[in-house]
């Protein structure tokens, strides 16, 4: 009798992990793993060319360079400085992202030398007239979404997990996002964005991942296609540099005024 009980216990123990972990838990675990693998990079800077393409295929370009400071336990700090078009050269955008409260954002207008605190509720608004929303550009933190694992499959020959994530913030422009993530490097390869009416709005494709500091993966290209208005935006990143020794001082209102 004892032996049978033990056997049953052993059986149940071996079976439990298989069905006790829900799709939600599995989704969260994947997100946590991805976050853990991308922790500890400290700070980074990079250059960015943004190519906006309208329905007719006409292009306009803007150049931006930016820097980020990793904040453990909260969202990161970032600064973006616009180099072209020339009329907005020197305009700079400072953002302190937060997981559980609205981000703090400031804009520097060089013509007036004015630093303006701006409302951050506008998460779904376009970043610089592009197909990227402010929330697409801000730091991705685990606590910003709830997760659900959908399936594993192959994408362009790579093993991927497919998870659905639902923004926690009620001001998000999305009802949900579907993420195809690389099972080896735990970085997204494709993201589908569904609008508030739950219809497919945009698809983001990330390519050209390179590894930095033998650990952190960054994509060289991000292409966002808007299915509803026919426009697209391509981001081409270059000159990634890590461990620049940045501190909070490089992300304050004074540094915004001389950002170049």
């Amino acid at each position, binding site marked *: 009798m004892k032996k049978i009980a033990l056997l049953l216990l052993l059986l149940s123990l071996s079976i439990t992990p298989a069905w006790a972990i829900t799709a939600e838990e599995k989704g969260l675990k994947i997100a946590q793993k991805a976050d853990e693998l991308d922790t500890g990079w400290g700070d980074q800077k990079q250059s960015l060319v943004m190519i906006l393409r309208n329905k007719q295929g006409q292009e*306009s370009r803007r150049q931006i360079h930016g820097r980020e400071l990793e904040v453990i336990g909260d969202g990161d700090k970032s600064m973006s400085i616009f180099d*072209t078009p020339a009329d907005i050269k020197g305009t700079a955008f400072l953002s302190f992202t937060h997981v559980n409260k609205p981000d703090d954002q400031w804009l520097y207008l060089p013509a007036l030398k*004015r630093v303006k605190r701006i*409302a951050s*509720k*506008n998460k779904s608004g376009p970043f610089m007239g592009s197909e990227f929303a402010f929330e697409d550009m801000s730091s991705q933190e685990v606590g910003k979404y709830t997760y659900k694992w959908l399936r594993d499959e192959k994408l362009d020959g790579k093993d991927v997990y497919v998870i659905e994530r639902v923004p926690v913030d009620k001001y998000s422009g999305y009802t949900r996002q579907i993420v195809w993530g690389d099972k080896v490097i735990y970085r997204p390869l494709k993201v589908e964005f569904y609008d508030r009416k739950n219809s497919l709005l945009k698809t983001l494709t990330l390519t050209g991942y390179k590894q930095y500091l033998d650990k952190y993966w960054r994509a060289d290209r991000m292409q966002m296609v808007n299915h509803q208005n026919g426009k697209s935006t391509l981001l081409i990143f270059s000159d990634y540099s890590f461990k620049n020794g940045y501190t909070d001082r490089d992300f*304050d209102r*004074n540094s915004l005024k*001389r950002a170049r």
Partner: protein
Amino acid sequence: MKKSLLVLIGSLLVMSSPAQSVSWRGNVTIQERLFLKDPTDPRQHGNNASIVAQPEMYYEWEGGKQNISFIPFVRLDQRDDERTHADIRELSWSYIARDYEWTLGISKVYWGVTEARHIVDIINQTDLVEDFNQEEKLGQPMARLVLIRDWGTVDLFVLPGFRERTFAGVKGRPRIIPRVEKNLTRYESSQQDKHVDLAARWSHTLGDMDIGLSLFHGTSREPLLSPARYNGEIVLAPFYQIIDQAGLDIQLTRGSWLWKLEAINLDGNYAKYRRATGGFEYTFYGVVGSADMGLVMEYLYDSRGELATTPFEDDIMVGLRMTLNDEQSSDALLGIIKDRFNDSYLISLEASRRIGDSWKLSMQASKFVVDKLDQSLKSFARDDFVQIELGYYF
């Protein structure tokens, strides 16, 4: 002063040889103004063309710890000799350390949060011939020390040399009537425009609140104007008193709401007054496609009432801002400022749009509706105008 300036420019040119650390930007803009009514003063005109250039050079070294900024400015005006003017907006050297910064030279500083008027902002003199909305400033010689602490940022200023406010000349339009004659400028201080002014400001961000407290002692940027005779003509003579000004500016950022307040107390031997501007800005996101619409309402107060040197002494400003968020950064602002007790008001519409990568087209239309009893806006009663600007940016 002139000699040291030349030395500084010379050394700038020498240092600018390693091309990668020098950055340039700037613009050249042509402007045409069309007035819709005959002028009040027959010496004024019905239209006016002008051109302005403002190149900007910035050089930094030691990994950005030190920099030099040089921004000359020049405008050529078809008719107004006073509006044809040149200025050095900036020519300064800055040193940036971990918890302090200093700036020596001519520079520009902005204080404040409101949209309708900028009353706390006192360091730089208004370049009124540029824009009667008082948005443009002259360069100010200064020694500035910024201390960065956990409890906020402290700015300390020593300001040697005063800049007179610029006023439209005989042929200038729009302008106050009678005109201001700068040859009659007088000062309370025996040092005249050599008085060394002092200023300090503490500013801090506390959660969703940005706050600033400021003190200023020195020559008032705003002159008191009194009628005088000049070569047989009735004109206004500017008088700059010595003042102590205390200022407060606060912005609260909550969701789509921005709550703003600026207030000053100005104390001088010849005039004492209080001014305030306060209100809110609310943004409706994505009203049409990705376009945002902002609603701005501010109340403008001046304790001098109808005696104020500004026409905005007890007025309400309502503004409607459309930002299309498109590739051309198109935007438009419709603003109305109305007196609470008489029927005077000012309506203005401003719009701008980028063309290609390097050009920008801007338009501004202003209409003055002046109550018979309103003395302060009377000068501008016939000055409704439309202005078009085309700028080349590099």
